[in-house]
């Protein structure tokens, strides 16, 4: 029987524990959240600018260079144009979900950054399940896509959404397995601890296969070319956001590039050593690494032709999935064999394993039970 018998002492135990605000002040949390959101939006704008500029360079063009210094304000002009456009609502649309979908798509992108460390301990929430949080929150974007496809009341949007979800769900598996390899190596799920664990060597050196899998899977998951056939601008009509216009479409666009920022940040944090680096301040190192990853993504986009849907699925299930499993098992064995710290001579071993596995995977890779010549 609880009730009158409870003493004041017992009540004191029930009092809520002070939440773990950064700096133990609630307004720190508010200020840093706002700073982080602004940071992400600025990063997205920079990424869009870089994308347009660097893609242009790859095509021996110049790219936007008229609006503002070096054409930097071109995106702001484009954003203003989008904001001023009419937002068309289809007659058959499920209006509430139609409006919610872009927000559901974009909000997780911002939320993910709460666990990204910019310096030792400089992160909004040092969750001890950091990576799990990233994966879980990051997957919510896909629900936004499905909501968009469904609520548009248009079968082609729906098909586009399903195409995208099929790809994202397939690629989630190798990506998560590659991340698991990192977690096993670092012995922690917290992103901050993972970065600290890379003090000696970044994990890209220790685990080239994991990096490759995360990079390719990540590109597929955020719809980067050559895996961008969910919206394939040059052959299909945009897929799930066919019916969107104006500011809602802009949200999807932001979300797309926001996911690119997230993926670059994740790869930089998990495999390139995050904020670690000599000389420069840690946050600058992280930024530099993010931009390096971004550049490589743009480079692949400028180079590789789009894959077919069966090639896309086959790559996920027949090539990356087994490789990711093998990678995880090998990592686990190595960590079991050297529980304290991996000796440096596993690096050449791991590179050799990577080369052999990739060659083997390519040799055994078949489409359509081997009937279709690739």
């Amino acid at each position: 029987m609880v009730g009158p018998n409870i003493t004041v002492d017992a009540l004191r135990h029930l009092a809520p524990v002070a939440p773990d605000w950064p700096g133990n002040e609630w307004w720190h949390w508010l200020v840093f959240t706002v700073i982080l959101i602004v940071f992400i939006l600025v990063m997205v704008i920079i990424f869009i600018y870089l994308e347009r500029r660097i893609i242009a360079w790859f095509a021996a063009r110049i790219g936007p260079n008229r609006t503002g210094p070096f054409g930097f304000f071109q995106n702001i002009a484009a954003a203003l144009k989008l904001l001023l456009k009419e937002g068309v609502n289809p007659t058959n649309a499920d209006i509430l979900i139609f409006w919610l979908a872009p927000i559901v798509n974009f909000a997780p992108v911002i939320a993910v950054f709460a666990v990204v460390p910019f310096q030792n301990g400089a992160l909004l929430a040092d969750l001890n399940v950091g990576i799990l949080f990233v994966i879980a929150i990051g997957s919510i974007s896909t629900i936004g896509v499905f909501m968009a496809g469904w609520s548009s009341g248009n079968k082609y949007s729906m098909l586009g959404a399903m195409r995208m979800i099929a790809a994202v769900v397939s690629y989630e598996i190798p990506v998560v397995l590659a991340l698991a390899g990192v977690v096993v190596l670092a012995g922690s799920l917290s992103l901050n601890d993972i970065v600290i664990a890379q003090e000696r060597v970044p994990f890209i050196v220790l685990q080239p296969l994991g990096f490759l899998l995360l990079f390719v899977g990540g590109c597929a998951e955020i719809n980067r070319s050559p895996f961008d056939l969910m919206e394939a601008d040059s052959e299909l009509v945009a897929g799930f956001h066919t019916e969107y216009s104006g500011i809602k479409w802009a949200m999807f666009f932001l979300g797309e590039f926001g996911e690119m920022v997230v993926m670059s940040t994740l790869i930089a944090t998990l495999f390139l050593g995050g904020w670690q680096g000599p000389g420069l301040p840690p946050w600058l190192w992280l930024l530099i690494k993010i931009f390096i990853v971004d550049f490589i993504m743009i480079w692949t986009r400028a180079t590789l032709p789009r894959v077919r849907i069966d090639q896309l699925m086959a790559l996920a299930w027949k090539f990356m999935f087994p490789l990711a499993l093998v990678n995880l098992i090998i990592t686990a064995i190595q960590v079991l064999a050297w529980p304290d710290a991996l000796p440096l001579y596993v690096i050449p071993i791991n590179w050799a394993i990577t080369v052999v596995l990739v060659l083997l995977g390519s040799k055994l890779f078949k489409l359509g039970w081997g009937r279709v010549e690739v």
Partner: protein
Amino acid sequence: MKFERYGIGIAKGMTVTMRNLLRRRITTQYPEQKLTVSRRTRGNELVWNKEKCTGCATCAKTCPQGVIHIVTSVGEENNYNVEVFEVDTGYCISCGLCVEACPYDALFMAYAFELAKYRRSELVLSRDDMLIENKQASAYFRPEVDKDLPEQELLINRKE
């Protein structure tokens, strides 16, 4: 063994794009930078030699667009005086057939291309607009003009 299947193809492609990244940009910023136009091109204008023209109107008959308008009168020495020679460049397709047809080598193409106007009527070139004394004739179908022109480099081979 097809090595293209083991990632070599991707690596090759990546080097190709990287080489393009480091190459000179092919784009010119038009109003500020202008490409030198080939002096053998068919521009949007015609150039007319008043001395050589006999007013035979072959050019007017050849023009598929019918935009050359010639009015002649009989002169003293059993010749034609060209009273009106007008070309409506708004309809001209720069085909160059009039130049090729002229039996007296009196008509030339020109290489001007910035000829946007505010009114249609301004597009009609009168005889005085086309006089060869004021305009540079293109070497199109005119080997005697071509002789005196310097060799021009192709754009794609341009170095700087």
